[in-house]
């Protein structure tokens, strides 16, 4: 029973993480790191909650979140492609800006109640003992997040559009010479990624961590960036990483009852642990003398899109 409940909580808690991680994976596959993730998620959480509250429809909130994320991503894309600015610099400044914007604009929305997203048990299947409760008794947004995993994988790997996006992120010059509109693909990938980040933000304030407060979603954006790398730019692995992080969080909450001194720190622990796993993986992959067994590297090795984080070469269409 305890085990069952734990899994339910993990899946539920990780909902926004899954959505965000997949969004950022798509963006990075197209060659763009959305370093504003921390800020985007936060301000989308606010807009999601605010619009949900104003209209009293959670769905409007989710849409508002998606729109917010898309707008920010579109801005980054403009600066990246048209103005040829450093993605990382723009993303970083936007993070700070959006965090402060959310805190400023969100003052009136602190600790009030808005529309709730409730659980939606799928009829019949949810009655199956154990499995039914674990997998089929969640909210709609959680179902969406679970479905997003195979859908995004399929999109990236089994469709034309997905292939074009990936080609643009791997070798823009080659893709361009084969007739692909690289700029369009890159922009597309970035904005889809941003939309999903925004949706994730809304999922926080409308479901997982209900409501709005100052710096409501603090640190989640940063950890998303790390989980994407941990996931080797593959939706399934990234999802595994997100669930793993969720598990760490649940464990931390449970462990809080053990010691008081640590209880303040425990909620923070999952973040550095995740990052260290990431550092460890990067170290194994790239250290100068490869003393680690090959199979370990093949399991943990990621495939960083070759053009990730770089400006587009001049003669690309």
């Amino acid at each position, binding site marked *: 029973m305890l085990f069952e409940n734990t899994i339910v909580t993990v899946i539920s808690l990780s909902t926004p993480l899954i959505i965000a991680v997949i969004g950022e994976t798509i963006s990075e596959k197209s060659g763009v790191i959305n370093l504003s993730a921390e800020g985007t998620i936060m301000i989308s959480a606010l807009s999601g909650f605010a619009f949900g509250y104003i209209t009293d429809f959670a769905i409007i909130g989710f849409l508002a979140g998606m729109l917010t994320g898309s707008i920010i991503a579109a801005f980054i894309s403009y600066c990246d492609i048209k103005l040829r*600015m450093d993605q990382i610099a723009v993303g970083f*400044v936007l993070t700070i800006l959006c965090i402060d914007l959310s805190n400023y604009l969100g003052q009136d929305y602190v600790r009030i109640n808005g529309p709730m997203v409730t659980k939606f048990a799928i009829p019949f299947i949810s009655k199956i003992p154990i499995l039914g409760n674990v997998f089929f008794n969640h909210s709609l947004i959680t179902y969406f997040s679970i479905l997003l995993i195979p859908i995004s994988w399929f999109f990236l790997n089994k469709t034309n559009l997905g292939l074009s996006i990936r080609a643009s992120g791997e070798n823009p010059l080659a893709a361009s010479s084969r007739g692909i509109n690289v700029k369009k693909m890159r922009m597309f990938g970035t904005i889809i990624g941003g939309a999903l980040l925004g949706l994730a933000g809304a999922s926080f304030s409308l479901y997982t961590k209900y409501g709005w407060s100052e710096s409501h979603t603090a640190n989640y954006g940063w950890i998303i960036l790390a989980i994407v790398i941990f996931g080797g730019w593959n939706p399934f692995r990234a999802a595994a990483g997100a669930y793993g992080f969720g598990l760490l969080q649940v464990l931390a909450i449970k462990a809080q009852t053990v010691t008081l001194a640590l209880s303040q720190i425990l909620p923070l622990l999952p973040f550095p642990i995740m*990052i260290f796993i990431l550092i460890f993986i990067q170290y194994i992959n790239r250290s100068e003398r490869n003393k680690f067994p090959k199979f370990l590297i093949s399991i943990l090795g990621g495939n960083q899109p070759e053009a990730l984080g770089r400006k587009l070469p001049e003669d690309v269409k």
Partner: protein
Amino acid sequence: MNKNIQLIQINFIRLVLTLAIIFFVLTLFGTSPISIFDSIIYGSMGSYSKFIRTLIVWAPISLASVALIYTFSAGMWNIGIEGQIIMGAVGATFVARSFFGDTIISPYVQILFALGFGGFWGLICGVLKVKGNVHEIFSGLGLDFVASGIVIYLIIGPWKREGIASTSGTDVFDKASWIPTIGQNEFPLLLILIIFVLYIFSFFIFKYTSFGLRLKATGVNEDAAERFYFSSGKYILLSFFIAGAIAGLAGFSQASGAYHKLVPSISGGFGFLSILIVLICSRNIFFTLIISFLFSALIVGGSQLQIKLGLDHSLIGIIQALFVLSWLILEKLKLEKILLSKIIRSNE
């Protein structure tokens, strides 16, 4: 036309445009930009004591900014600066709580420890980068988290206040461990001296030493370094160590000068703020000093906004980030030259 004069003119126009954007956004928020800036100027420099407060905020920011110039020169994104500031503060607190704490040399020993703790923290990022090719953004983030965790642990654990374990911080330091000040209003002479010494020293290093030039070269092209007989890896490591150490000093300033104790939010987000500052200063030492002062004035003056105008202090963060974003975009749009020629033509 003299290149330097043209440069100043362009920067001036850019400043005007940036301020216009900020004013516009503030108006959108339904506030009055004039009264906001009025409040800020008054709140930061309206009186001598307010000026001192601005200096106390200026210290860590200017220190963190000059620290970042070292890592940015080497082409590194030192996001770990927050953690480096924090660990510097931890080092200073360690001394303040030790048997040195009530001696007259306490602040100076604190400085040593802050340099060491901060430098060590920065070095970790450097080693991970050079030996393991781990991107410094992630190692920096991770270490930021760890540093925050360490501080919280210390505050409610081994260094907790007598009787109550509270997240409001440790016990206040013994007076001897406070930053030495002058006069009734407590002018932080030591801090100001440290800042000026570091800035002048850094200016000298970047302009007149091999080290500075090689550091700059490493940031441009790691591969070509070998041909000029130096190793870019070594310079990256050094840049992280130095940046960490100077950031550690910022932590010392916060612990010993601002709060006189260790608190959970000891870095105050100043690390990230300094990244914003250095992004627009293009490693110009002089500008960095000025802009960090401006931003500090914004913070100190802005703390009054709540009281005077009923506005949340996060508005200040918005102004700062907007300033930097607008500046960077305007830099790329290159409108200033066009505007300048239009102005010149209309004057003829």
